[in-house]
């Protein structure tokens, strides 16, 4: 269960204090697929950063599996992020000089999973997202956008996180590939009981998720 209470994040811009996220509260039960929609500058990315513990809020609380993560130290946050949270980015953000397989093995390596187990787990995940054996040994530059995003999703799943945060995961893909990625995430939420939150502009996608939140000027409007 993801619980967000009165979450806020303000930035100082010159003499002006800007509230990128302003007193947001919501809950997403385990295994649900939720979407956050809103215009550019509405605070979607900041909210995702806060949920992913990449930034600390200036107010409010975030509870993941009944644990308040807002008071954790930086060191504990790194540990928590590695174990509990997976990220999928619009630009995929794979490491360019590593193969698809090595990219998925990377978070497993951070977690201390040993060589053979690491490779086995990464191979299973890549198969699960539809990457063939031949594609596993390719570097990101030699994979299509859709294939790269599948690899990114496999990487996000590597350490069996409770929460996957996806920032515009279909933003760089054509509509057909985007639909395939959306279906993949949807299935993962159901089959692996993983909470997935997607930030998107695509209202079609938003309409198909279990929950949808609309952000405007840092506030939740629906």
């Amino acid at each position, binding site marked *: 269960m993801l619980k967000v209470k009165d979450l806020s994040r303000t930035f100082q811009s010159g003499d002006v204090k800007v509230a990128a996220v302003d007193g947001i509260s919501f809950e997403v039960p385990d295994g649900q697929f939720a979407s956050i929609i809103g215009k550019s500058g509405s605070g979607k990315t900041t909210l995702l950063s806060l949920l992913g513990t*990449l930034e600390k809020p200036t107010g409010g609380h975030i509870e993941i599996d009944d644990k308040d993560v807002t008071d954790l130290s930086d060191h504990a946050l*790194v540990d928590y*992020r590695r174990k509990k949270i997976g990220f999928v980015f619009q*630009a995929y953000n794979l490491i360019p000089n590593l193969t698809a397989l090595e990219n998925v093995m990377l*978070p497993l390596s951070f977690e201390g999973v040993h060589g053979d187990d690491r490779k086995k787990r990464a191979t299973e995940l890549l198969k699960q997202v539809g990457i063939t054996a031949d594609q596993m040994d390719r570097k990101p530059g030699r994979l299509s956008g859709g294939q790269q995003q599948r690899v990114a999703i496999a990487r996000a799943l590597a350490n069996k996180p409770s929460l996957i945060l996806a920032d515009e995961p279909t933003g760089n893909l054509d509509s057909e590939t985007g639909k395939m990625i959306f279906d993949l995430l949807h299935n993962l939420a159901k089959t692996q009981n993983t909470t997935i939150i997607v930030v998107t502009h695509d209202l079609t996608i938003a309409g198909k998720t279990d929950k949808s939140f609309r952000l405007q000027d840092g506030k939740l409007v629906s």
Partner: protein
Amino acid sequence: MNTITLGMRNAFRNATRSLSIIIILGLSIGLSLTMLIAHQAVGQKIADAKSSIGNTITIAPAGFSQFSQANNSLTTDQLTKVQSLQHVTNVTETLTDRLTTIGSAQPSFGKFGGSSTSTNNQTSLKSPVNINTNSKSGSGMHVFINGGSGSLPSNFSPPISIVGTNDPQNLGNLASGSGTITITSGKYINGTSDTNDAMVSQSMASKNNLKVGSTFTAYGKTLTVTGIYKSSTQAGANDVIVSLPAEQRLSGQSGDVTNAVATVDSVDNLSSVTTAIRNTLGSNADVTNSQDAVNQTIEPLNSVKNIAFYSLIGAIIAGSVIILLTMIMIVRERRREIGILKAIGASNTRVIFQFMSEAVTLTIAGAVIGIIIGVIGGNPVTNTLVTNASNSANTSTTQTMDSGNFGARGRMGMSANGGGNFTARPTTGSGFFGRNTNSLRNSISNVKANVGWSILAWGLGAAVLIAIVGSAFAGWLIARVRPSEVMRAE
């Protein structure tokens, strides 16, 4: 894939850039190594030079020289005080006198520096030195007749030196000594025992049909040959060596010493002990060591050593700056990647180690090139530096050396009847210190730089040091990259 492997692979992500960095680092490390090699080679040469000159101090009666015939001497009591000084390990004492051959025509000899009161300084021995009295050159020994108007009597036999010493095995230490002697028959005399035992040279023994156990007379006493030696100098071939107490008794110079050499425990203490001896003996003695001359001779090497040291430091700093700037550039270029790594669970430490591994990989690759440069360039660069420094310093050094009082020639001086002065100059006629420092001066420009495992280890150590210093700031930058930046980059 572990952090180190990842860092190593990242080092070669951009082949062109990596190659450029490696070549630049290689040049920097190569220069460091070349300077290190030069520094060590020159340092070793300086150490060798210091050790080769010996740790001895010559003590002579004040105003005494081979030619002055000053009627002074040191005493055993004075030298006992010297022996008790701190850092003095040994004092070799000698009393030298001249003997004339019974029946030989008598040029007018001055005393040889001692204060002998004996009127019976004659011997049954004949000198092995042959002098052609009709010529200005002798057989086996160069003879110079100065003044020209005199001539030698036809039955003239050159005088023989009799050397009393308390340390017959170390006569080579003495400025006026018999060179290095090696016993070829019999045994060494006991230098502290007052007996009428003597050692003679092979030439002397041959000339006088002597062998171990034979006897001859000196000062009206009978002496027994206990050892026959081979001398490294022709002058030494004209010597008879007896114990110091025996010579003091036979020549009637009880307690007198004409020359002494103090040995110091370390060359580092040479200067302080020289001063201490001067203070102990006051105006009674001239106390000299070779350190000043040596210091002047090795001065160019010290300059090269300093140049090499500062160049080494400069090259290491340059290498560190190169890797520092490289790593800053890499970190700035890969901020987003750092953000990704942090976002997916990598700690600051882990990311810093990854980039340090990358820096170390680049520098070790540079070190390989640097070591090759160092191995190839070490010797020529060292020799060039030393030669240039030596040449620039040579003129002043030569002038100083030649005007010093270390280069006294010969050990025999006399006035011949008829007013002609001559000096018999042994083949090794230059003075002890002059000989050694000239040889040293000639050898300092011949520095051989050796590249051993220690140099290679230093090279690799320097490379790792450069990598660590160079990537330290990059590490600080990495720590400041916030994982949320990966989101901002979207």
